């Protein structure tokens, strides 16, 4: 079958559980009290738990965040999504 994986596949005797970490670049607009505003190319579900790495001039900061709001906005003629993220850890 063309375009299909050609290698022999194997199943495992014990299940492998895990997670797929899907990153996306965002622009950080500002901070509030325990909140961060970012602009993203994609929307997010309210209450979704995510990880945010803030990368500035200093060392990057990693924080756990919960999506509080996700609103479409028009920036330079392109639809983006402004996310309000509550810092949870």
């Amino acid at each position, binding site marked *: 079958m063309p375009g299909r994986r050609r*290698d022999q596949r194997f*199943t*495992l005797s014990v299940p492998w*559980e895990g*997670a797929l970490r*899907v990153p996306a670049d965002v622009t950080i607009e*500002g*901070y509030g009290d325990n909140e961060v505003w970012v602009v993203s190319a994609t929307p997010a579900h309210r209450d979704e738990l*995510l990880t945010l790495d803030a990368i500035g001039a200093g060392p990057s900061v990693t924080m756990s965040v919960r999506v509080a709001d996700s609103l479409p906005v028009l920036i330079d003629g392109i639809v983006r999504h402004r996310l309000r993220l509550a810092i949870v850890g």
Partner: protein
Amino acid sequence: MNPNPLEGPEVIGMLARNVPTRLVDISRTGCLLESAQRVEVGTVGELRLQLQQDTFVDDVRITRCVLVEGSGSNYQVGAEFVQTQRPGERSIRRAIAAILRGLDTTVRLKRAPAKAAVVNSVQTTGEEAS
């Protein structure tokens, strides 16, 4: 409440979501996962798999995502390993190679049935080596 706007150079960030998955089958160049969430084809991400006390990691590109009929929201997700660097010590590819060579005897692999190999097949670019 409005944000306090940042001054100076633009601050960028990386927002990451974790999609829980379970490995269904695996080959040298890719794997089939099950997930309760849909993942866009073309997405590149980091796959972390837990086996007993060990965690294995590799970068993957999603090549296929199909809702399993009659399962509610259970998706079969095809992924190919992104081979841009040598597999590290905790690489999934390296772990599978070790199991296949019999170096790791805590896990056994068995060949996926031919039917599953067709049903669970994964679209690729066709550029991978056999």
